[in-house]
C-alpha cells in the first residue's frame, strides 16, 4: 500500500488527536474535558492502526526505495542501519516536512468555538471518507474504516451539537462561533485535493477520491450551520493547501516539538 497515502490518513488522526489532547485538564467543565479526551484517544487509536499498516508497507520495500520515502535524517539512518521501522518511529522520528496531515488538523484550539468548528469540518469529512473507504479493494484499509466509523459517527454528533448550541445560543456565542467558522473555512478546500501520486490508486478503487466527497461534506456542514443559524462562508477559488505534500503552517513545528521531544532527546526510551 502507498505509504504516503497511509501517512496522510494517520497524520490527520495523530495531529487532530494531539490538538484535542491539549484540552485535557483545561476543559470548560469536567464532563466535556472527559468527552474531548475520549475523542482524542479515538483519533490516536485510529492513527496507530494506520501507522502500523504504513510501517508494514515500508518494511516490504527494497532498501534503495526505502531511502527515498522520507527526508527525515534520524529515521533514514535507523532504517539504513537495519532497524525495523515501527509505528512509534513513524510518529516520533519524522520531521515536519514528512508529515502529510491537512493544515486544518494542526490549527490551534484557540477557544471552544474554534475547537468545535475544526471538529465539525474534519468529523464531517471523516464520516464521508471512512464510509466510502469501507468499500476499498484493500481489505486492511476497509477493516480499519469499518472499525473507525462508529467512533467517527459519534465525533460528528458531538461537534455538530456544539456548533448548534453556540451558533443558536447567546448573541456573543453566535458571533464567536461564526468567527471561528469563517476563519477556518479557508482550510476546508484542501480536504478535497488529491495529490498526484494517489490519483492512480483512486482510479483503481483502492483509495477514495476525496474530490468525490465534496458534495456530501457540503450537505452535512451546511445543514449543521443552518440549524446553528450561522452563515455558510462563500467558497472562493483560493484554497489554503500544502499539508498533504509536507508544506505546513507554522503550528505543526510546535506540535512536533512537544510530541516528539522525549524520543528525540532520549532515543529508544520506553516507559
Amino acid at each position: 500500500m502507498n505509504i504516503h497515502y497511509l501517512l496522510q490518513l494517520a497524520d490527520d488522526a495523530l495531529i487532530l488527536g494531539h490538538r484535542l489532547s491539549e484540552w485535557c485538564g483545561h476543559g470548560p467543565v469536567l464532563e466535556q474535558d472527559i468527552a474531548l479526551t475520549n475523542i482524542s484517544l479515538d483519533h490516536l487509536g485510529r492513527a496507530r492502526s494506520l501507522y502500523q499498516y504504513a510501517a508494514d508497507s515500508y518494511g516490504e520495500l527494497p532498501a534503495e526505495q526505502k531511502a527515498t520515502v522520507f527526508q527525515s535524517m534520524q529515521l533514514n539512518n535507523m532504517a539504513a542501519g537495519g532497524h525495523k521501522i515501527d509505528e512509534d518511529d513513524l510518529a516520533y522520528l519524522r520531521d515536519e516536512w514528512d508529515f502529510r496531515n491537512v493544515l486544518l488538523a494542526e490549527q490551534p484550539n484557540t477557544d471552544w468555538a474554534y475547537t468545535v468548528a475544526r471538529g465539525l469540518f474534519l468529523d464531517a469529512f471523516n464520516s464521508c471518507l471512512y464510509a466510502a473507504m469501507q468499500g476499498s479493494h484493500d481489505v486492511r484499509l476497509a477493516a480499519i474504516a469499518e472499525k473507525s466509523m462508529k467512533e467517527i459517527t459519534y465525533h460528528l454528533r458531538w461537534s455538530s451539537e456544539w456548533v448548534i448550541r453556540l451558533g443558536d445560543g447567546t448573541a456573543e456565542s453566535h458571533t464567536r462561533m461564526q468567527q471561528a467558522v469563517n476563519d477556518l473555512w479557508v482550510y476546508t478546500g484542501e480536504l478535497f485535493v488529491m495529490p498526484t501520486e494517489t490519483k492512480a490508486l483512486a482510479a483503481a478503487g483502492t483509495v477514495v477520491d476525496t474530490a468525490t466527497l465534496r458534495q456530501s461534506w457540503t450537505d452535512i456542514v451546511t445543514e449543521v450551520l443552518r440549524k446553528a443559524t450561522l452563515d455558510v462562508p462563500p467558497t472562493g477559488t483560493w484554497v489554503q493547501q500544502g499539508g498533504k505534500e509536507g508544506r505546513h503552517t507554522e503550528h505543526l513545528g510546535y506540535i512536533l516539538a512537544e510530541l516528539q521531544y522525549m524520543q528525540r532527546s532520549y532515543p529508544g526510551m520506553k516507559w
Partner: protein
Amino acid sequence: MNGTTRSWPLWEVFIRSKAGLDYKHAGSLHAADAAMAIENARDVYTRRMEGVSIWVVESKHIHASDPGQNDSMFDPANDKIYRHPTFYDLPDELKHM
C-alpha cells in the same frame, strides 16, 4: 466560560449494564439539557463497557426520604420476620418456590 458550571443543572445517571438487568445509580454530572446529559453520561460512566442503556433525570426531580426519620421509617420492619417467604414451611410437593 465564567459561571457556566454554576448555571448547568445537575443530573442523576442510571446505567443498565446488560439487557434485562435493572438500572443502577451510577453518579451525577452537569449538563445543559437532557441530550447533553446522556452524552456526558456516556463519556463519564460507560467508557469501560459498563452499560448498554442510560437514563438521566434532573436531580431536582428526585425526592428522597429524610435520614432523620429512619427510626420510624425502617426499623419497624426489623421484627416482621413473617414478611419473608422463608418464614413459612412449605409442603414437600412444592418444588419450585
